[in-house]
């Protein structure tokens, strides 16, 4: 049963990845005109450069063969060559990946902790003052996109108070953390509302369930009831949304890293778009999509740990 589930999920995951990668690859073909001049936009290509690009992308092959070469290369860690750096795309991205992952991890922790705590407090006080207060604050925070958050944080905490650096990613563990705090907060702000509201909603829904009333009627302490019957049961949706969060965070790094001058994958994406370095753009887009799809598949596979009905395949999602 479990094995069939895993195999089924893996199949679905692979299909989604194949389709998504094809979409990314063939998106280039939507651009009218000659692929060589598209790839070498803004440059004065020498005949050798044209030959090199034609060879690298297999531009004289039929499209599906180009795709197979590209995707096949990916599996061997060959993401092609960057046009701006004269280096392997994999090296360029690999150098910048750690700081981006650190940023995302830091932001994710902030979001989950504040979101779940705020949502829980709101749910347990539903309809009363703390609930309304939290909802209002969450709504307000939700309207602060990362670049706005970045501007405000830089103005207040970097320039005015001078508590945190406004620029760069620092050296060594603590210095890096110090550098990454403002960017991760800027990124986290607008996502807290997501986790906060889903936590609140899920818990409010569980609080209204009859089994909670049954547990209460059995003489359990209110806190025990909340812990064992409300929070535990409410975890499923929170878990699912946390998976979806990853995609949003990965993309937000583009904005936040640019704002804070951090040399990560996000700012590399923007820089590559600016410098017309399509191979790097393509590779980063694929990585973000793959990360999102894989994380969500993992979240999906882990659901039965939370809800035994999911294993039986009858849980309503």
């Amino acid at each position, binding site marked *: 049963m479990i094995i069939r589930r895993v195999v089924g999920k893996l199949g679905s995951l692979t299909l989604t990845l194949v389709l998504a990668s094809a979409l990314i690859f063939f998106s280039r073909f939507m651009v009218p005109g000659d692929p060589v001049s598209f790839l070498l936009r803004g440059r004065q290509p020498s005949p050798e450069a044209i030959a090199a690009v034609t060879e690298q992308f297999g531009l004289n092959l039929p499209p599906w063969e180009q795709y197979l070469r590209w995707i096949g290369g990916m599996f061997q860690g060959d993401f092609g060559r960057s046009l701006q750096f004269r280096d392997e795309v994999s090296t360029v991205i690999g150098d910048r990946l750690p700081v981006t992952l650190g940023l995302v991890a830091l932001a994710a922790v902030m979001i989950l902790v504040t979101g779940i705590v705020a949502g829980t407090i709101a749910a347990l006080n539903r309809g009363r003052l703390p609930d309304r207060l939290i909802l209002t604050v969450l709504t307000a925070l939700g309207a602060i996109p990362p670049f706005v958050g970045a501007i405000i944080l830089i103005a207040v905490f970097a320039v005015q108070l001078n508590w945190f650096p406004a620029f760069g990613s620092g050296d060594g563990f603590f210095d890096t953390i110090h550098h990454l705090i403002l960017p991760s907060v800027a990124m986290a702000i607008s996502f807290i509302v997501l986790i906060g509201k889903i936590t609140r909603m899920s818990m409010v829904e569980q609080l209204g369930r009859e*089994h909670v*009333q049954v547990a209460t009627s*059995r*003489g359990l*302490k209110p806190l*025990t009831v909340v812990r064992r019957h409300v929070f535990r049961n409410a975890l499923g949706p929170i878990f699912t949304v946390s998976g979806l969060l990853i995609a949003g965070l990965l993309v937000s790094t583009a904005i936040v890293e640019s704002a804070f001058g951090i040399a990560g994958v996000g700012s590399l994406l923007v820089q590559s778009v600016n410098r017309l370095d399509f191979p790097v753009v393509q590779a980063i887009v694929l990585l973000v999509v793959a990360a999102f799809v894989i994380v969500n598949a993992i979240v999906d596979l882990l659901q039965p740990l939370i*809800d*035994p009905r999911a294993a039986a395949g009858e849980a309503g999602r």
Partner: protein
Amino acid sequence: MTLLEISGLTLDLPNGKRLLHGIDLTVSVGETVALVGESGSGKSLTAQSVLGLLPSGAQTSGQVLVEGSDVLTMKPPELLAYRRSTAAMVFQDPRAGINPMRTIGDHLTEALRLGEGWSVARARERAIEVLAAVDMPRPHDHLRQYPHELSGGMLQRVMIAGALAGSPRLLVCDEPTTALDVTTQAQILRVLAEQRDKRSMGLLFITHDLNLAASLCDRVYVMNDGRVGEEGPARQVFLNPETAYARRLVAATPTITVQPNEVPAPAATAPGPAVLEVRDLTKTYRARGREPVHAAKNVTVDIRRGDALGVVGESGSGKSTLARMIVGLERADAGTIAIDGHTLKGQPRKRVDRLDRARRVQMVFQDPYLSLDPRMTASQAVEDALHLHHPRLRMADIRTQALTLLSSVGLATTQAEALPRTLSGGQRQRVAIARALAIEPSLLVMDEATSALDVSVQAQVLDVISEIRRERGLTILFISHDLAVVRRVCERSVVMRAGEIVESAPTIDLLTRPQHEYTRLLVDSVPRVMLVGGNT
């Protein structure tokens, strides 16, 4: 000795609405007391107040004394201890009432372990003991199971076991069998009665079913609109109700008890030609990884013009599938359906076929809350149908006809303009009937058409149906799980189980001389008051 004594209990919501107007009620040790009422009567609220489970912000006055202490004024620790060891409650829907993410064992032992500080082993022992007490087949194995692995009836036993785990002296049961089939209900009631006697508990039993109350309980309280209307020994309330409301309720409650001198009601008209002829209808649902389900196995049914045929069965018997195949919502695997001698195709596709099918058979669905389009007023619903079948009729004529139809089922012109959400369940079902009649079908299929309604409303709708039959000589296929209702409507009935018709006979004969053992089980399971002798 008095166990529970409620006196002068009132309950007000924060918005000032008073839901209970001074309830007085007592339950003695070992006594079974029923609290009967229709929805909104306040019976569940009264039951919950016994456990101190009140809506948040509700204001109460009066007393709920259990063994001399007032539940309403207990301090939190006292109240928790009281719920763990003195009183317990069995809720209506076990599927909703047991946490789906925790094991049965956890459900049974958590109050003991976390509240009373019992060791895991000791709590486990008690859990096995109570599971055995409610006749669960494999107590040891059940502890590790999750709720979704058990049937509804089994789960309700688990719920009862959970209530018994703290050895309560008062057991409050809130409609504990309403979600269950009648044969399962009979088993659960037997378990409850057994445990009550063995443990000499007091039992407060909340139900909408007067038959059930009268058959199980010593005394009955009839509630209406937040007040106790009548109180007395069960048989007396049932056979000689004193207050007007109780009399109406008793009169509206269908029963399967057959008076000794009762003869089968004659058919509405003289036996005519067959309207519906179903031959060897077969339908099997196959889902991957599951056992195939036989919804219909060689079902053969006939109805003559003007007759009403009842189809009785429990859930999963295939009775609804039969209805859906007849009206063309599902396709049969094999067999034929003919109406007025015309063999019908599986699912009509072409416009001509669809309209032809519609004129032959119409259907009234179970849930009046979902069977009407929320955006369409009562008269629009009927006009839609009229317009489709009489495209050349002028709108003004359609409208007049719609209003006439609605008034024929007892709806006023003002209600004709109302959207479904402002209509009551009974009114909606009348709209559904009018909508079906608008097409003037040869056959009307009613699938549990009154099951979602309170008994007094049900009685009114059943009256509407019999009036229509009298006036129009309509032929009806009446599907229900409730033998007593079927008996009010149908001269003949068939009994279905697992997709098969096990018995077909005049309804009176089914009740008095059931031939098939399943029919006998079904009839015996229906609670009823014995006209002679004591309570069962």
